[in-house]
């Protein structure tokens, strides 16, 4: 397998992020950005204590973000554990919203490939539109890149028509060189999206990591003509940060990627902050969280 072709300088990446994040997004461009962010959210609940009741509430929220503002877009999808897929699927029937399920022994991935494939088949059979898998970070750090690649390819096959998002769990890969290489492996192995994190490891999505993954997507597109999607996840709870990520996408990949088809936010509380900001922008008054339903 090709070794590290793309080197990343951490300080340079941080400086690029700082420059991108210094963009000042105001007025119409801010409203537009906030709505766009909203439409890109994978509303997520991934907890051991999740129950059908919790998931149903979340699905209702996803479809009815803020009924006072009818022209708002809905979120893109909801993201749940495998056992909750049938519940979500049923709750979202006729809404047009997608159901994404994590799979492959999320979040650690520490089981055999056959179990992982079994799990993927299970969620796909249950109707998951999108599958969020985790890569085998241990294998990656051991240098077993073929293993990592083959696993992704087999999961992709198991997905059938469902979309595959490949979670790199960048907090465990540690270096940006690793992030870049893992991105390249995932894309070459068939990922439809690459995704930063499970949300269970700290740090989750960091701006330099997202930048490096976007640059990987850009290079892959320039080489192959294939557009791969990107999903930062974990720790994105504020509208300001989300808008800054949009700036990053716009200036790294261009306008084409500013759509939920190619960019998602994995988040649980971001939607409400966006809503607060949208209301603030249209009323001119700063908002309180008490006025926005939590689920």
């Amino acid at each position, binding site marked *: 397998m090709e070794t590290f072709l793309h080197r990343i*300088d*951490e*300080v340079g990446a*941080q400086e690029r992020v700082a420059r991108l994040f210094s963009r000042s997004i105001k007025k119409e461009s801010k409203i537009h950005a906030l709505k766009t962010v909203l439409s890109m959210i994978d509303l997520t609940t991934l907890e051991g204590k999740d129950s059908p009741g919790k998931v149903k509430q979340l699905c209702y929220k996803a479809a009815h973000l803020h009924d006072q503002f009818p022209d708002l877009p809905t979120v893109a999808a909801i993201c749940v554990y495998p056992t909750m897929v049938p519940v979500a699927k049923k709750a979202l029937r006729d809404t047009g919203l997608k159901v994404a399920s994590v799979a492959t022994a999320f979040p650690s991935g520490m089981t055999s490939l056959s179990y992982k494939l079994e799990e993927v088949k299970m969620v796909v059979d249950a109707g998951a539109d999108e599958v969020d898998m985790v890569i085998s970070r241990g294998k990656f750090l051991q240098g077993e890149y073929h293993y990592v690649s083959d696993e992704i390819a087999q999961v992709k096959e198991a997905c059938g028509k469902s979309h595959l998002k490949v979670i790199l769990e960048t907090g465990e890969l*540690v*270096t*940006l060189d690793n992030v870049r290489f893992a991105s390249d492996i995932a894309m070459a192995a068939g990922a439809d999206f690459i995704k930063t994190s499970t949300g269970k490891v700290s740090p989750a999505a960091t701006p330099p990591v997202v930048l490096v993954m976007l640059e990987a997507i850009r290079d892959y597109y320039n080489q192959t003509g294939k557009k791969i999607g990107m999903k930062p996840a974990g720790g994105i709870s504020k509208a300001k940060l989300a808008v800054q990520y949009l700036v990053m996408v716009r200036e790294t990949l261009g306008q084409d990627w500013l759509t939920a088809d190619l960019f998602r936010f994995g988040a649980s509380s971001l939607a409400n902050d966006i809503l607060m900001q949208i209301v603030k922008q249209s009323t001119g008054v700063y908002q309180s969280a008490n006025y926005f339903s939590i689920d």
Partner: protein
Amino acid sequence: MNKREDVKKTYKLYIGGKFPRTESGRYFKWTDPKNSTVVNMCRGSRKDFRNAVVSARSAFSGWRSKTAYNRSQILYRIGEMLEGRRGQFMDELILQGASKKEAENEINQSIDRLIYYAGWADKYQQVFSRVNPVASSYFNFSYPEPTGVVSAIAPDEPSLIGLVSIVAPIIAGGNTVVVLASEAKPLCSITFAEVLHTSDVPGGVVNILTGYRSELLEHFSSHMDVNAIVYCGNVKEEIKFVQENAALNVKRPIVYTDENWLDKKVQDPYRILNTLEIKTTWHPVGI
């Protein structure tokens, strides 16, 4: 019994590690103060100077990339060789007008000065280098590098230690030099070249010309491939002339006036620094 005739020495130039006559074929008569000896000194020309600069330039990259330890040893070796040839310098200095005591003192001081700068050759870098605490994620350090090819007008007197005192810090710093010897007392400068020649100093690192200061000053100060000029003397018009010409290529003009070259006060590492450049390098600190 027949009297044995002396074999007289021919004084030539020292360019690129060789002892050529001046390409111009010209000479000037040098007579000792007692009018006992007449010597035909080479009257170096503009072209000799140009050739010397070419030699100095081509020797520069080798000399600057030698280890500091190696340069230090070579400077020490010059001191050793000078010590070994005291007799010859005694004769010449006395012939040039010095008393025996004066000659002895000048030779001693010259040797000591060489040893002094030999010691600095691998230390000034530490004195003049720093790590700069910049307020960002960078490792930033500054260190001195030689400025390049230096031309030098040696003081008229004292002619040996004057020459040694300006050449030693220049080459200790990794520069190469073309030096114009004392016009009044030129003998020991060429003999000093013989010392250099036997001291592992690579050819072209030090080049010594004899000739007329009035004629050569223009070329020493205006040559576009010379990075700095050291001028020793106190003739105001000459200083102005040198500094004006230096502007042609932003040469660093270094002027030493009224120095007591026999005094230890004229030796310090700042004289090395005068023909050095500070380079600052930035590099990110990250993974």
